[in-house]
């Protein structure tokens, strides 16, 4: 193990390490802690210039109540869910199939198609912006959740296919050959042999896509406007305009907006990290 386990260091060093850990964590998360404190402060704290002192009073219920009952926030949150969840299923389904095709079968253009997905996934969004916006307008899907979902599914398929294909490559191939010898139809091999083995990959991708799409801002601004269809990342900026300089409400709003992916991360941590670090180890 590197660096050397701290247990083999002097007792002084061990104590130093154990005190340094929480201190460094607090420094690392300082901006976030500040926002959390902001979100429970009363309005008067800010008008009186008490930004960083102790809260004048504890206004948790009040501030978060404002966010939930007195703003468009719940609507934006619902929009985000309605955009994120279908995208998650769509992208995972498409890429599981594509990954199966590219991972199992040997055909001439296999690597070429694979690299097309990989390369497309690295492309800067801006080169897609004008045509995708036009296409969405032409289909009558501008400012709808469907328009956003369709694009997200397509774009995420690039990354997901890369992931799925590499995962399927690591499965034991003799298993598939055995099924073929038994005369199992190819689509049954996919459904009954490969898919059950891919559960960890499916879970990892689902949580990753959830986080990526929930946090998307650029496409939300390009393809939607207004509270009927905008997700929470775009909504928070109009929230910003509504409560200009109301730091306590802005903070509460930001925390609410950030919560779903945070919960997802802490609940599905193993899958999340497995997904993000795929390929980091040979």
């Amino acid at each position, binding site marked *: 193990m590197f660096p050397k386990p701290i247990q083999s260091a002097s007792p002084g060093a061990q104590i130093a390490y154990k005190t340094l850990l929480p201190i460094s964590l607090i420094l690392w998360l300082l901006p976030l802690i500040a926002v959390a404190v902001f979100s429970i402060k009363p309005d008067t704290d800010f008008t009186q210039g008490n930004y*960083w002192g102790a809260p004048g009073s504890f206004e948790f219920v009040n501030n978060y109540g404002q966010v939930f009952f007195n703003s468009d926030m719940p609507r934006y949150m619902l929009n985000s869910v309605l955009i994120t969840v279908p995208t998650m299923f769509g992208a995972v389904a498409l890429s599981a199939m594509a990954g199966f095709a590219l991972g199992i079968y040997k055909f001439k253009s296999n690597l070429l198609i694979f690299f097309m997905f990989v390369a497309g996934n690295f492309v800067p969004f801006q080169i897609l912006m004008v045509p995708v916006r036009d296409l969405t307008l032409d289909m009558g899907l501008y400012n709808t959740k469907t328009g956003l979902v369709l694009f997200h599914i397509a774009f995420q398929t690039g990354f997901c296919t890369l992931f799925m294909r590499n995962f399927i490559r690591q499965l034991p191939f003799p298993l598939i050959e055995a099924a073929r010898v038994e005369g199992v139809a190819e689509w049954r091999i996919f459904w*009954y042999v490969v898919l059950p083995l891919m559960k960890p990959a499916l879970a990892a991708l689902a949580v990753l896509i959830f*986080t990526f799409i929930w*946090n998307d801002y650029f496409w939300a601004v390009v393809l939607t406007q207004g509270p009927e269809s905008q997700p929470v990342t775009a909504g*928070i900026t109009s929230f910003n305009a509504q409560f200009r300089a109301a730091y306590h409400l802005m903070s509460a709003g930001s925390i609410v907006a950030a919560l779903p992916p945070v919960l997802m991360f802490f609940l599905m941590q193993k899958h999340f990290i497995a997904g993000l*670090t795929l390929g980091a*180890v040979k």
Partner: protein
Amino acid sequence: MAIASNTDTPTNRGWYKRNEIAITPWLFLAPAILFFAVYVIIPIFQSINISFYDWDGLGEARWVGLDNYVELMDDGAFEVSLWNNLKWLLFYLLAIPAGLFIALFLNQTVAGIRIYKSLFFFPFVLSQVVVGLVFSWFYLPNEGLLSGILGWVGLGPVNVLGDPTLATYGIIAAGLWPQTAYCMILYLTGLNAVDPEQVEAARLDGAKGWKMLWYVIIPQLKPATFIAFVVTIIGALRSFDLISIMTNGGPFGQTRVLSFYMFEKALSEYGFRMGYGAAIAVVLFLIMLFFIAYFLWSMWKEDTDR
């Protein structure tokens, strides 16, 4: 295997059955290819095409050849954006050594270390919009925590985001926060897989500290470094959210990058110049293409080595 019972013996071996192995992959690929072609591949070429036109997005598009690109050459705002993109590329890469440093710091087995690791990773899960808001409050000229801390050590307050020379660095620093967390998790996973026997052997040979890190550990972390490099470069060139939230390109347009400037030209109150915007996007794409080619080449080498 359980599935064996599901099989039906084909009595009539039709055309599909005979060509099953050749056709199946294409059936499985069709939906993904269709979506990807319509929304990603074709739009790239459409954008390149639009960049040769003068078009407001509604009326008739007028062919202007290379005029948009010629105009870019003399556009001061474009030049600023290009330089800022370079700054982003260069300084965003600091996330890699910073992530490695934190990973080394946390790669211990003391009580509660798993919670520490998750909490250090936490910023990555936040949306860039939230990160942008959080940091813009952190940087507030008088009330901000940064000015508070600086005042505490006897330095005057700074208005990071209001200062044309500092603002871009301020935004990059905000971007480094989640990016460092990402690199950290990559390295933690990498460190987990470092071969303990090699480390022990090197220890017996008297290697330790920096030498050990440089000659034994970092070479073994190569796959993690590669991914960290890929995601950091892409992240740097995609930077848009933070700029839009924190400064909206200001002060005096000094924090624009290509992706932001393109959006501004094509889709904001500054006018709907689709052709000009597309030309900016093409330039950004060409920069990216250079990296994409390198990434694909590395992956291809990897794939054929196996």
